[in-house]
C-alpha cells in the first residue's frame, strides 16, 4: 500500500495553472457566460483579458500539506499526536470524529498580484478590481489543486475525504491559524500572519481535510463549500 506521508510537511512549488475565463466571470458574478467573448463587449473583454494575462505573469502557486494522526476526541476538541490544542470546537469534532487522520493545507499565489492591486487601487480602480478577482479565484484554485492531490492519496489509502474546513469558520477560532502555520511550516512558501491572524499574502488559503473511513461521518459534497481566502 502506498505510504501515507506522515510526520512532515509536503511542499509544492511551481504549481502549474490555467486561469479559466469561466471561473473569472463567475468570480465577478457575471452569470451565464463562460468566455470573455460571450460578453459581446469589447472594452470589458479587453480589460478582463488584460487582468488574466497579468495574472499569468504574476502568479507563483505554492502549497504545503501536513497529515496529522488523530488520537482521540475530547469534550471540546479533537486530539492528534502532534497537537492537543489545534482542533477545538464542536464543528471540528463533528468533522473529524470518524477520521484516523487530518491534513492541514495552506496555499498561496504569492505577493505580486496583491502588491499590484494595492498600487493600482487609486489610479486604476477597475483594473485593480479585475486583477484582484483573478487573484482571489487563483488562490482558491491553488487550494483546490492541493486538495485534489491530497484526495488521491486519501482514496489510495482506503479512506474518504471530508469536506474542506477553513480556519476561522464556525467555532474554529482564527487564532488557530498560528498553529496551522507552524505545523505546516507555511513560512517556507512565503505565508506569514499579521497580528489579527490573517494570512499575508491575503491571497492565500488554509484549511483542514479529514480522512474518514468510507461510509462514516459527513459525506463531502461534490464541490467544497467551506474554504477561506
Amino acid at each position, binding site marked *: *500500500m*502506498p*505510504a501515507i*506521508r506522515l510526520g*512532515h510537511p*509536503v*511542499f*509544492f*512549488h*511551481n*504549481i*502549474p*495553472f*490555467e486561469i479559466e475565463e469561466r471561473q473569472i466571470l463567475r468570480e*465577478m*458574478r*457575471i*452569470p451565464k457566460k463562460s468566455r470573455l467573448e460571450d460578453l459581446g*463587449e469589447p*472594452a*470589458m473583454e479587453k*480589460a478582463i483579458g488584460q487582468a488574466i*494575462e497579468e495574472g*499569468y*505573469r*504574476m*502568479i507563483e*502557486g505554492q502549497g504545503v500539506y501536513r497529515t496529522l494522526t488523530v488520537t482521540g476526541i475530547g469534550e471540546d476538541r479533537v486530539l492528534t499526536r502532534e497537537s492537543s490544542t489545534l482542533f477545538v470546537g464542536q464543528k471540528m469534532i463533528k468533522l473529524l470524529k470518524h477520521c484516523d487522520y487530518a491534513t492541514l493545507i495552506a496555499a498561496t499565489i504569492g505577493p505580486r498580484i496583491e502588491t499590484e*492591486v494595492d498600487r493600482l*487601487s*487609486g489610479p*486604476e*480602480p*477597475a*483594473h*485593480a*478590481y*479585475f486583477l*484582484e*478577482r483573478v487573484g482571489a479565484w487563483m488562490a482558491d484554485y491553488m487550494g483546490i489543486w492541493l486538495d485534489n*492531490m491530497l484526495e*488521491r492519496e486519501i*482514496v*489510495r*489509502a*482506503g*479512506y474518504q475525504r471530508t469536506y474542506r474546513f477553513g480556519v*476561522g*469558520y464556525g467555532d474554529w477560532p*482564527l487564532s488557530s491559524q498560528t498553529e496551522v502555520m507552524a505545523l505546516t511550516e507555511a513560512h*517556507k512558501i512565503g505565508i506569514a500572519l*499579521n*497580528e*489579527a*491572524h*490573517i494570512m*499575508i499574502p*491575503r491571497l492565500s488559503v488554509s484549511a483542514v481535510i479529514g480522512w474518514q*473511513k*468510507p461510509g462514516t461521518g459527513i459525506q463531502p459534497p461534490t464541490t467544497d463549500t467551506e474554504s477561506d481566502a
Partner: protein
Amino acid sequence: MTPLLERLKKDILILDGSMGALLQGRGLPPGYAPDLWNLERPKDIQAVHAEYRAAGSDILLTNTFGASRRRLAEYQAEGRIREINVAGVELARRAAGGKAYIAGDIGPFGSTIAPFGDTTFEEAVAIFREQAALLAEAGVDLIAIETMFDIQEMRAALIGVREGAPGVPVMAFMTYNADGITDSGSDPETVAAVLEGFCVDIMGLNCSVGPEAMVPVLERLGRATHTYLAIEPNAGLPLHRDGKTVYPSGAEEMATFAPTFVEAGANIIGGCCGTTPEYIRLISKMLKGRPPRVRTPSLHTKIASRTRVIPIGAGAPFVLIGEKINPTGKKLFSEAIAEGRTDLIVAEARKEAAAGAHALDVNVGVPLVDEAMMMEKAVIAIGNVVSTPLVIDSSFASALESGLRIYPGRALVNSVNAEDERLEEVLPLIRRYGASVIALLSGDDIPEKAIDRIKNAEKILKAAERFGLSPRDIVFDTLALTVSAAQEAARQTLETIRILKSEWNAHTVVGLSNVSFGLPMRKTVHDTFLAMAIGAGLDGAICDPYDPLLHQTVAAASLFSGRDPECRIFINKAETWTPLVPQADKGGGASLSTGASASNTDKPLTTREKIDRAIVEGERESITALVETALAEGMGPFDIFVDVMTPAIRRLGDLFGARQKFIPHLIAGADTMKKGVEVLQPLLEAKGPTEPKGTIVFATVKGDIHDIGKNICILMLRNFGYRVIDLGRNVPLETILETAEKEKAQIVALSALMTTTMIQMKVAVDAIREKNLPFKVMVGGAVVTPKFSLEIGADGYGKDVGEVVPLTEKILAALKAPSAS
C-alpha cells in the same frame, strides 16, 4: 537462466504479488517499515518469497520498496541501508532457488521533487543511485522502480538507477488514477515518450485503482510504445471493515483480466496491494505458455512536456516550433532577462501557444547573464502556464543541462553539430536526461553541397550511437541558408531534406526565418520555401507562429505530404481563417474587407452620446479624448459632468438593478467616469469651490486588511459628487471617530471581509451611540448581512457596490428631512 530480456521475446512472465499484506498476516504492525524485517525477521521474508515462487512467479521483487536512505531515515535506520538492501536481495535469491529472476525493488523516496518540491533533482538522483548500486552489487537481475506518481521523480530515479546500476535492465512503473493520468497530470502517451527517452527495458503501471480501470491505460501504453509492458494491479481500492483493511477484487475476478492484459500488450503480469499467492497462482495458470503480443515500433521522434507529447516524423502533423522566446534584437526582453525576470518570457510563451505553436524554443542568451540559472527559471516559469513541449536552446552546455534537469518531460535540445568538441559536451547530456537533439549539419564550416551535409549527418549519427542514442533521438537541421546570399546552397538544403527522408527516413527541421533575409516580401519568400521543403519531406520548422500565412501554407502543404488524411485538419482550420488572398470559391469570403461595415450606414453618434456609451460600456481608453472633444465643441465642464456623465452612470446603475449589467461593468464605468472627471477637474476648480453633496468617512475596520470593495465604493461615491475621506484598512476606531468629527462627516462607512473582524462594526456603532455622536453608520462587505446590520443598529447596509450610492442618498435625505418627532 536465460537472460530476462531474451525470455521476454517469447514468454509472458509472472511477477509476484503484495508483500505488505502477507507480512501483516505474519504480525507486521501497522506503520512499521517492512524493509526492517529483512534483518529482524528474515525467515518470514524468505517464506513470503517462497510462497510466491511456488504460486508461479517468474520474477520476485525484493523487500526493499522503502529501503532508500531518505525513507529509512524516517525509522532512524538510514545507517543500515546496505545491510537491508543486500539482505533483501539475498532472501529473494534463496527463495528463488535459481528458478526466478530477482528484481531489486525501489519505491518513491517519500517527498516531492523540484520544480514541484523541496528536494533538488540531483539530491533525488543521489538517493536512487545509492540504493540501485547496493541492489546491483548484491546481484539483482533487474531493477524495478515502482509506484511513481510524478514523472519528474521517475526521471530522477531512472538517472540514479542507470548511474548506480549500469547495464542492469530497468522496469519502470507509474501509478495512474481512475481518470487515466498520474497525480501530476501525465497521460500514458506522455509517460511512454519520456520513458523511451531513458531507454527503459520494461514500462509498467502498478497499484492504482484496480484491474478494470487499468485496462484502458495499458491499452494506451501498448499503442504508444513497443517497449515491453508490465502490469501489477491492486485488488481494487482498499476498504475498511471491522477495523481491518480489505480489498474488493478477489483472486478469481482478478485472474479473469489476465488475458485482456496480454491482449493489450502486457509481457509481465503480477499483483500489487491486496493480492496474495492465490491471485498469482490463478494468473499463472491462465497465462503460462501464452506468447506475448508483438507490437510495431513507432518511428517518430517524440518530445513531451509533463502532460503533452508531440511526435515528429513522416505522417505526423508538421511541427511548428515557436522562435519568439529569444532575446536577440529585443531590448526589453533582454533587459528583463538581465534582471532575472520571467514575466515577458511567460507572456511570449502564452502568446505562441495560443497562436498554435506545437513546441517552444527557449533561448535566454544575454551577455553577462548567468544563462544556466536563467534557463532553469525560464523552463519552470513556462511550464507553470503552458503545456507545450520545450526546445532548450543554448550554446552553453551548462545552460542546456540546467534546463534539461529541471524539465519534467522529454525536451528537444537545440543543438549539436558535427564539431567534435560540441558532440562530446552535448550528447552525454541528451543521454543522461533522456532528451532528443537537433543536429545541425554544419561542422567547422557550413557545407554548400547536400552530399557534404550528409557526411556531417553520418558523423553525428556515429557519435550518437557511441553515447547510446538511437537515430530516433535525433532531428537533423538541414541548414536553411539565406537565398539572396547563397542561392545554390539554399537549393541544396531542399536536396538534403530529400536525401535524409527518402534514404534514411530521418527527421528534419529548419530555422525558417533566415532564408528570406535581405529580400523584400520576406514572408512570401520563406513561406514558399517552407512549402517546397515540406514537399521534400521536412518534418518541422523553427519559425514565427504569429504569421497567419505560415499556418495556411503548412496546412495546405500537409495535404500533399501525407500529413493530413482526408484533408480533415485543413478543412477544420479553414473554418476559422480569414483568407489572405481573394478566394473565388463559394463561401470563401469573396472580397477582402475594406473596412466598410453596416454600422457606417447608421446615424453617427454625437459626442454626448459617445461619452454616455463610453461610461456605460467602460471604454476607459476613449473617455479622455471624448471629454476634450466635448469641451472643444463648446460644452461647459459642469454641463458635461452633470448632464452627460452623471446620467450615464445612473443609467449604468439602472442596468445593474435590472441585472443587465453586473459589478464589473459598474466598476469599469465608474473608473471611466473618474478618468473623464480628471479632465474636467481643473476647469471645475477654476470656477470656484463647489459644495459637496455630503461627507463620508470610509474605512476597513481594525484587524481587516481587505479593501478592494471599499475602494470601489469610494470611487462610485466620488463620481456622484460626494466628498469621501478614505482612511484605508485596518483602521482603529479612535482614528475613524476623530476624523469624522474633524471633517464634519454625515456618514461613517465601514467595510469588513471577515467574520472575525465584522464585530468591530458593532464596537463602532456602540461607541457612536454612547458618545451621542451625530454620524450615521453604513456597513458592507462580503460577510456582512442585513440581519447583522440590523442587530448592531447600523443605519444602512449595502449589499454591494451597486447599492452604495442609493444608500448614501437615502441616508442623507433622511437627515435633511424634518424630524417626525
